[in-house]
């Protein structure tokens, strides 16, 4: 854990490849680094690699644009398409394919490395909220009892109660609000209140942390199921479950990959699928990867949209329900 750059440079070692965790989809303009003009007081800057500079830039951009919402309103997928019009046709073809499959809307999340967890949490609550009237109460109670039932797993994974309970309570109180008025809002959860909650960093990030802990606990308490799939995403080396969870699941802002998604599907007992919009399809279709470790057969799975390094929510509706 000592500063490595100097040593690497001195010994002429190449910089280890780093994943850019800036997390922006490729078609959005990559801010070009035009010299140290905005951070001239930092002599270290000139020693950074382009990848590190890019990452630094991303961090600063996110800091500098605090009003970029953590999660945005539902937008028509044509908005996404228009951003690719000057890009590769492969993406356009794939977006058209998604439309032909009935996906008309996209709900975007901020590219902060928490986007998978945030997207899934939002979609999870929204789907509960959209349950059929006669099933609403049952769906909400089932979800809450699932969450209650994972608490012993969190304990078994070695997390102290004081570590998880605030995050747990935040998540559960949003779900409860679907069926009973909240003390603060004096209202049941509406689409607008849900969006507001997930745009508030305090609530939104608490839910993200809770899902991270849940994912980690699932892996830690069932290491045999996951051990063969735990690799350091930066170095490609196998990792022990505990180290993997500490560095790449529990740590804030670390992106989720297949293993984390599988574990969370199992822990939350839900199914979802991920549409891979990667511009690589030969026939212009989009692969949907299913995560169906849950038991909620019957209901349509939630769908996330993956573009390299980033997750958003894919929807059949193209605009917010009027309410």
């Amino acid at each position: 854990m000592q500063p490595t750059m100097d040593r690497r440079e001195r010994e002429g070692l190449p910089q280890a490849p780093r994943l850019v965790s800036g997390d922006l989809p490729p078609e959005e303009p990559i801010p070009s680094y035009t010299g140290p003009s905005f951070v001239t007081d930092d002599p270290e800057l000139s020693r950074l690699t382009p990848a590190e500079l890019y990452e630094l830039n991303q961090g600063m951009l996110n800091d500098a644009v605090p009003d970029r919402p953590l999660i945005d309103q539902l937008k028509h997928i044509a908005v996404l398409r228009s951003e690719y019009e000057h890009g590769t046709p492969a993406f356009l073809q794939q977006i058209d394919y998604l439309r032909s499959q009935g996906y008309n809307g996209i709900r975007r999340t901020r590219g902060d490395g928490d986007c998978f967890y945030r997207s899934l949490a939002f979609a999870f609550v929204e789907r509960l909220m959209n349950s059929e009237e006669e099933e609403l109460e049952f769906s909400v109670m089932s979800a809450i009892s699932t969450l209650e039932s994972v608490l012993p797993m969190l304990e078994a994974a070695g997390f102290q109660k004081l570590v998880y309970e605030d995050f747990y309570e935040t998540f559960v109180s949003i779900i409860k609000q679907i069926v009973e008025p909240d003390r603060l809002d004096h209202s049941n959860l509406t689409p607008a209140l849900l969006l507001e909650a997930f745009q508030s960093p305090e609530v939104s990030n608490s839910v993200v942390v809770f899902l991270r802990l849940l994912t980690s606990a699932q892996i830690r308490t069932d290491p045999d199921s996951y051990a063969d799939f735990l690799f350091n995403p930066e170095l490609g080396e196998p990792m022990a479950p505990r180290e993997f969870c500490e560095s790449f699941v529990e740590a804030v802002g670390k992106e989720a990959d297949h293993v984390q998604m599988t574990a969370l599907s199992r822990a939350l007992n839900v199914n979802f699928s991920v549409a891979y919009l990667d511009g690589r399809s030969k026939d212009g279709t989009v692969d949907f990867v299913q995560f169906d470790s849950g038991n909620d057969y019957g209901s349509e799975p939630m769908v996330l949209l993956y573009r390299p390094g980033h997750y958003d929510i894919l929807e059949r509706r193209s605009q917010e329900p009027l309410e």
Partner: protein
Amino acid sequence: MASISARRLRKELSEIHVEGCPVGINLLSADNFEQWLLSLEVMGESQYPGEVFALKFRFDPNYPISSPAVQFVVDGKYTSPVHPHVYSNGHICASILGNEWSPVLSVIGICVTLQSMLASCKKKERPQDNDRYVLHAPDNPKKTRFHYDVDTV
């Protein structure tokens, strides 16, 4: 509603009062939810026999989602431990305080981790870029982007 940092720190504080601190760690001051001071001593055989250090924790309202700013106190009474990951101004290069921060860690958890970092020290020396770093270091160590080796501590 109290900020998440106040809710969490209140619980951490009550746990410290109920269960006490691990050996070698003591609470020096915690009379608000912005800044705490704890003392740290390495028990058993080590490079630091008899040396007592103080750690300053600064919390923003998003703790524990955001990491606390943690540094060794350097004043008339305390000094910064001589260690390859600790700068003479008290700043600490440890990935758990930076890009590997997780809300699973608590104040005491951090103290224990730093205690074992000191305990496993083989040779008392400063980071190689100490002088250059200290010259330009920001007041808040969280504003520094340290580069971490794959854990060698």
